């Protein structure tokens, strides 16, 4: 459909001017993007479309001739998604090109109705497929954004707490999947360095199940901590989990495990050369009732 290619490139300036002029406010969104930027993008995009039509024809935008235009569209769509445009607004940006394009076709092919109809159809197909491409790129970006937010939520949901100088605890609540475990691993090790803590207690009381993958990730965390010069203790191992671990044949020989967090804490204190001492009797607060078995007021 070389007619369309000629029509677009021959009328490029006029098409662009009309396109920008007639863009509805909802597409332009001056609250999110400057007018100048929109004009720049429109110019670049139209040029890319012209190049695409010349190099790759109008019927198939997946070919190599359209690579440049596809990339520009994908980048544009991705950046608009990040800026907060709705999917319709992004698609409309492309679709609003139809009117000025049809105008140019009508002017150039006024004398030949058949060719005009053919050109209008080709233009419609082209812009529709470009708009669909835009929508897909938009969706992909949104998913990436959601993924990142999930990541941040993961980080927030597994806080690392300091139990004492040099002793950290990481209480894990909920299911541990691959992504979460990596986030957990990284933040624990970073805290180890930041607080110079030799002992890190990973409490899994709140973890319902442990499968081989989770166990492997935990083991990797422990090995990494050890490589850095810190020791991990796993606590909160419930009987069911202990059974699962044995049944799965997971080797925990090198790992210190305790049933309760308090046991793990006691161990860490001991290993770091500390002891908790009860003060001598009477050294605490004064008793409420004074004297030996104070008489009751009757």
């Amino acid at each position, binding site marked *: 459909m070389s007619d369309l290619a000629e029509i677009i490139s021959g009328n490029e300036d006029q098409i662009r001017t009309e396109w920008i002029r007639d863009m509805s406010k909802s597409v332009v969104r001056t609250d999110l993007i400057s007018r100048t930027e929109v004009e720049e993008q429109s110019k670049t995009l139209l040029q890319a479309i012209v190049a695409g039509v010349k190099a790759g024809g109008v019927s198939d935008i997946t070919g190599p001739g359209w690579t440049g235009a596809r990339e520009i569209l*994908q980048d544009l*769509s991705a950046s608009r998604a990040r800026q907060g445009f709705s999917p319709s607004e992004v698609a409309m940006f492309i679709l609003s090109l139809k009117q000025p394009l049809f105008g140019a076709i009508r002017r150039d092919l006024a004398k030949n109705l058949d060719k005009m109809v053919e050109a209008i159809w080709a233009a419609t197909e082209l812009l529709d497929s470009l708009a669909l491409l835009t929508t897909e790129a938009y969706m992909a970006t949104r*998913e990436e954004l959601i993924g990142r937010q999930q990541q941040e939520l993961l980080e927030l949901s597994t806080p690392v707490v300091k139990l004492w100088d040099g002793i950290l605890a990481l209480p894990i609540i909920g299911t541990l999947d691959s992504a979460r475990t990596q986030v957990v691993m990284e933040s624990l090790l970073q805290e180890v360095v930041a607080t110079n803590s030799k002992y890190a207690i990973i409490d899994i009381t709140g973890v319902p199940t442990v499968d081989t993958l989770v166990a492997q990730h935990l083991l990797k965390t422990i090995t990494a901590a050890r490589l850095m010069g810190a020791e991990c203790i796993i606590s909160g191992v419930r009987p069911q989990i202990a059974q699962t671990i044995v049944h799965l044949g997971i080797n925990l020989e090198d790992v210190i495990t305790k049933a309760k967090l308090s046991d793990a804490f006691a161990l860490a204190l001991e290993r770091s050369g500390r002891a908790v001492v009860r003060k001598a009797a009477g050294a605490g607060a004064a008793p409420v009732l004074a004297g030996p078995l104070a008489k009751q007021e009757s």
Partner: protein
Amino acid sequence: MIQPRVETLPLKTSNDVVFARQRVRQWATELHFGLVDLTKLVTAASELARNALDHGKGGAMRIEQVGNGAKVGLKLTFEDQGPGIPDIEMALKDGFTTGSGMGFGLGGSKRLVNEFAIESAPGKGTRVTVVRWK
């Protein structure tokens, strides 16, 4: 800094290996890779670059950005015209070694990246292609 889409670096000396991994680091930093992903990629690059130099008798590394708008990654291609690897499966096993050192580092490098492909045959050189997504 405008990033060229593809960059090719020679791997002929041990300084080249250092420079190569510094370039990979720069590329990954500009693309805002997370710290752990970056470290894994640069370490893999170091291993594979060294392989190309030590076992492959010198070669080259190509860096290119891959992916479309949403998914972004870096692809590294290591090529050498060396003797080639007779048994690729063996080479990918941990601890495999042909002499000094702890092995080709191939199995380990594979774990550090998201995509790993290797083509090699005795007398035909070796090409290793890896991709790490952001």
